[in-house]
């Protein structure tokens, strides 16, 4: 089972980003996704900076993939995306169909990220005909759908298509044209003054009775709780999942990578979820829920 690190979803200063990936090069992560997928105004790193980090990670033995913007709206964003899709040193992860268009036109195989709506084997097969070689299970789907999809892909002779599952981190739930971080500061997006730099792990949004519900990250809304499927690696392995994807949200993600590697090596899979963690989606429940063996027993008795 490989471990991959999803693209950095937050806005950090350039020095912090470089230091983060230097550390990552020493870790046991197998595959790293790089690039700005949330907001094109975040220009601490230019494309050449990302390519420099990519080459460093590749030299350290890591697989590197460059990720594209999830919701492009401006011509400049599409021009940048085209440049990225036309380079041939690294595989590209398409997060919307503009990127698929560029990659297909350049006749490059590509992979897709979690916000690409591939909910059935038929959709995956259709996109494979256009060059898809790896896909990520939409985060709101779980073991039941993945089992069906993998069985059907096998029957269609498409088991070569690799699959990743988002396994740890706050869940990317929605993208908007509106910047919620700027809005909270009573600014509009064009005069945001890059305020999301001040909140490197996003801004918590809670209900009026203090329950953390979501996390505001510019134009992206993430879950309030941290999704944790680290215990599910045996089922994922059985289903032929190629890699478990950890979301890059802070320097402490290195510990998560180490913990998962340790668990797989020592056949452990019953580490209790920490408070404010959830795993509902994998088990067919609301994403914010927590499913444990105890609750499964209770459901059976009921």
């Amino acid at each position, binding site marked *: 089972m490989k471990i991959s690190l999803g693209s950095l979803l937050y806005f950090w200063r350039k020095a912090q980003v470089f230091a983060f990936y230097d550390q990552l090069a020493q870790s046991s992560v197998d595959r790293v996704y790089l690039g700005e997928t949330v907001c094109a105004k975040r220009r601490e790193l230019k494309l050449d900076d990302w390519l420099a980090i990519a080459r460093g990670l590749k030299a350290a033995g890591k697989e590197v993939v460059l990720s594209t913007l999830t919701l492009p709206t401006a011509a400049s964003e599409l021009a940048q995306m085209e440049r990225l899709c036309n380079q041939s040193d690294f595989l590209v992860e398409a997060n919307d169909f503009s990127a698929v268009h560029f990659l297909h036109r350049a006749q490059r195989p590509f992979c897709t990220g979690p916000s690409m709506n591939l909910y*059935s084997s038929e959709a995956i097969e259709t996109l494979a005909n256009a060059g898809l070689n790896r896909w990520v299970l939409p985060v709101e789907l779980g073991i039941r759908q993945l089992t069906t999809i993998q069985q059907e892909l096998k029957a269609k002779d498409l088991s070569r298509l690799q699959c990743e599952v988002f396994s740890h981190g706050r869940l990317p739930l929605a993208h908007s044209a509106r910047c919620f971080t700027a809005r909270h500061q009573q600014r509009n997006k064009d005069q945001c003054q890059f305020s999301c730099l001040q909140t490197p792990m996003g801004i918590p949004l809670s209900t009026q009775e203090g329950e953390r519900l979501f996390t505001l990250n510019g134009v992206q809304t993430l879950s309030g709780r941290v999704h944790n499927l680290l215990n599910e690696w045996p089922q994922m392995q059985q289903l032929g999942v190629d890699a478990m994807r950890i979301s890059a949200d802070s320097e402490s993600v290195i510990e998560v990578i180490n913990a998962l590697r340790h668990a797989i090596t020592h056949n452990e899979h019953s580490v209790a979820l920490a408070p404010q963690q959830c795993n509902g989606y994998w088990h067919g429940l609301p994403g*914010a829920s927590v499913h444990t063996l105890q609750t499964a027993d209770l459901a059976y008795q009921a």
Partner: protein
Amino acid sequence: MELVCPAGNLPALKAAVDNGADAVYIGLQNDTNARHFSGLNFTEHRLVQAVEYVRKQARHRYVKLFIAVNTYAQAGGFARWQRAVDIAADCGADALIAADIAVLSYAHKRHPSLNKHLSVQASATSAQALQFYHEQYGIRRAVLPRVLSLSQVATLIQQSPVDIEVFGFGSLCIMAEGRCLLSSYATSQSPNTVGACSPASAVRWDETATGFDTRLGGFLIDRFTHGEQAGYPTLCKGRFCVEGQIEHAIESPTSLNTLPILPQLLEAGVKAVKIEGRQRSPAYVAQVVGAWRTALDACLHNPQRFTPSASSMQTLAKVSEGRQTTLGAYDRPWQ
């Protein structure tokens, strides 16, 4: 510029047609469309009646019928979406509205003469994305997500290989359509999994000493005092606490109304304006379509001199969420 109007049932369809729709869009009675609510949508029998009604009008003016099969086919359930496409083709629909590439691909191969419109649920925001769908699956029109400013829409139209339809009026999604899982995080149901958002089954209204609390999936979405009108707890429209401030942190309940910028939409080359609201009553549809027909005719007649009449604006405000309307993302500072 075509006026495309919603119909959740046969009375609403008749209201839309009778009040001047150029096209009506409907869904079938299952999860193949993104307004999968109990009591809504068309059985195969009602569909026959719907086709009869719109075709009867053809003597006076041609009214198109679009069928939305616009959700993402679920794992193991593709046969349902194939069947929905076949029904749309067999009844002679003027277009299929779809988002899923497998659904589009099936329609393209199996029913090549069935027009295909790309649903807003596909979240296509660039001419390049539209180029892909056009080349691969033969779409002839696309409905744009409500995330582009007016100038971005105009630029996209200049480069687009297909006609463009935009939302002109109705409830506003603040998130890019087809890209929002907020609902399933709280309730396990989302537009992408069952064609529903903030489902009634997960709603709870609790009377309190001071008023009402509204909950979705157990989460407190908003608190109202006795004097306030309690709104439906759509997840993104609640009042939440962010850094100590209680506010509509994501979106206020409001409706989109682009009547004031109709001349600009026309000038930009928009082919069709879409009214949201398949879950709305026939009375709502009659009022909204009637107001829009009048306004659109006035604008087409003399775009330079067009301003929406006060009575149109009042009619539309009265039926809007929060009794207020906005230009939404078309107006850049709103973003």
